[in-house]
């Protein structure tokens, strides 16, 4: 069965500092990987996704993620964090036919941004 681990429950960074959120997955075949962001009381917004091809994926709001098969990781990065980035971030893995099957989510990382 597939699984996703986000080892950091809570991260605090200063505004303008760089950010890396960790995500490790377990899946037998090539996974479909996603990062979603959730602001308090809101739904999930897609930041970026990896299906195949270039392992460095660019997303919205200046985020990027790198797929590393050898490490089973899909870490999310941003070079300079803004106060508006404070939110909960979820990594998710889907099976090949992702339109039919559900995503498996990690437990989330809550990002706090200090002025």
């Amino acid at each position, binding site marked *: 069965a597939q699984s996703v681990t986000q080892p950091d429950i809570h991260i605090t960074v200063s505004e303008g500092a760089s950010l890396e959120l960790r995500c490790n997955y377990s899946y037998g075949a090539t996974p479909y990987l*996603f990062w979603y962001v959730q602001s308090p009381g809101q*739904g*999930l*917004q*897609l930041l970026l996704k990896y299906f195949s091809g270039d392992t460095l994926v660019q997303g919205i709001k200046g985020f990027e993620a790198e797929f590393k098969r050898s490490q089973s990781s899909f870490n999310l990065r941003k070079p300079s964090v803004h106060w508006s980035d404070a939110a909960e971030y*979820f990594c998710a893995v889907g099976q090949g*036919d992702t*339109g*039919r099957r559900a*995503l498996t989510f990690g437990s989330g990382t809550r990002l706090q941004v200090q002025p």
Partner: protein
Amino acid sequence: DAMVIQNPRYQVTQFGKPVTLSCSQTLNHNVMYWYQQKSSQAPKLLFHYYDKDFNNEADTPDNFQSRRPNTSFCFLDIRSPGLGDAAMYLCATAAKRETQYFGPGTRLLVL
């Protein structure tokens, strides 16, 4: 803009009183999902529709049911809400083999 809409955004119900949450989409996606998300937890899939084909997760309580009368609409019915059913309920849609897009959610409070 094409989108996923959930109504109401906030729903208060009484213990044991049936409640229905609704989801609509203008994306014309053939797959629709319902997730339950409790505070500080990841979303948990309750069930999904692939066109009219209903797929229930094994651990979804019988208290939860769903209807999809057409492509655009999907409903979540909670027959007898308990205090433990208070949560955010998220609807998502996807085209086959594509990304899931989420609505803003409905926060359910059970008194």
